[in-house]
């Protein structure tokens, strides 16, 4: 099993052909399936599923992951044990599928009303109420100002979808027609602009955060 192979042997065996490769694939798949099953069993949102269903799910995730791992063997840098690297790929795949499944019923189109930024919620959220302190009201006005005047439509849409709806980034990137990295940079740039906007008005996000506790 897994303890009999070091990193070099894993790579050699998975790149080999015939029975040696078959055995390595079988061992890796079985190990990943066991680890995935252990993890899925801990998830509260899957607690309604029977052991057999979780085993089947782990099996499918492990099979899909092994295919990807075989395609990515050249990318293994040897910074960790091979099995840790493989488990990272498997968990990445499994979580992406679980997030998609959760999200399936609600499309971005519904959230943003045909793709346009839907400001009702944020507008309400950014409208100060009498209970809020002067500093909170000032912060809300500053954020609203930067959001309206300095962020692009795409940045507002992305922030809204991620923060208010918790839209999975993979789903959002696909809906917006951009790569995952581009989406991260788009939101990162929006965060930087909002942070600068607050600091330029003498408001520190750290102090403001304390005022909301």
């Amino acid at each position, binding site marked *: 099993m*897994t*303890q009999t192979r070091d990193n070099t042997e894993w790579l050699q065996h998975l790149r080999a052909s015939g029975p040696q490769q078959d055995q390595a694939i079988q061992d890796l798949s079985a*190990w990943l399936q*066991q*680890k*995935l099953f*252990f*993890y899925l069993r*801990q998830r509260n949102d899957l607690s309604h599923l029977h052991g057999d269903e979780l085993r089947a799910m782990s099996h499918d995730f492990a099979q899909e992951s092994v295919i990807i791992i075989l395609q990515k063997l050249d990318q293994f*840098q040897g*910074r*960790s*044990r091979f*099995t*840790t*690297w493989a*488990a*990272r790929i498997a*968990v*990445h795949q*499994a*979580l992406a599928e679980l*997030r998609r499944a*959760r*999200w399936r019923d*609600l499309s971005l189109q519904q959230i943003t009303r045909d793709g346009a930024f839907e400001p*009702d*919620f944020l507008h*309400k*959220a950014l409208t100060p*109420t009498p209970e809020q302190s002067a500093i*909170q009201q000032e*912060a*809300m006005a500053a*954020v609203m100002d930067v959001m309206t005047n300095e962020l692009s439509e795409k940045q507002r849409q992305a922030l809204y979808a991620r*923060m*208010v*709806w*918790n839209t*999975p*980034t993979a789903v959002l990137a696909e809906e917006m027609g951009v790569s*995952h*990295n581009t989406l*991260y*940079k788009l939101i*990162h740039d929006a*965060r*930087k602009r*909002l*942070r600068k906007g*607050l600091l330029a008005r003498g408001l520190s*996000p*750290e102090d*403001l*955060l304390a005022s*909301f*506790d």
Partner: protein
Amino acid sequence: MQVFQDNQSNIQELWRKLLRMLALTQEREWTCSEVGEFMDYYVELELAGEDPQRVLPEVAQHLRICPECREEHDALMTMLQGNQEESE
């Protein structure tokens, strides 16, 4: 699914979430794919009782700000810590 409804307590929570993100925002940050490439190493350091935040501060910063990568990190930790007797 966790969705914010427009009531006052959720609005307060949204504000905390936004300000927490802005407080953690750095001029330069690693993307999810860059972090993903080092996640295996980061988790092994953690499991070995080392200080991964000192070795890979960029990953530690990203994990504080990105809920999906944090979920991936936590899941990987669970997977590798679980069933130790049957694992490697």
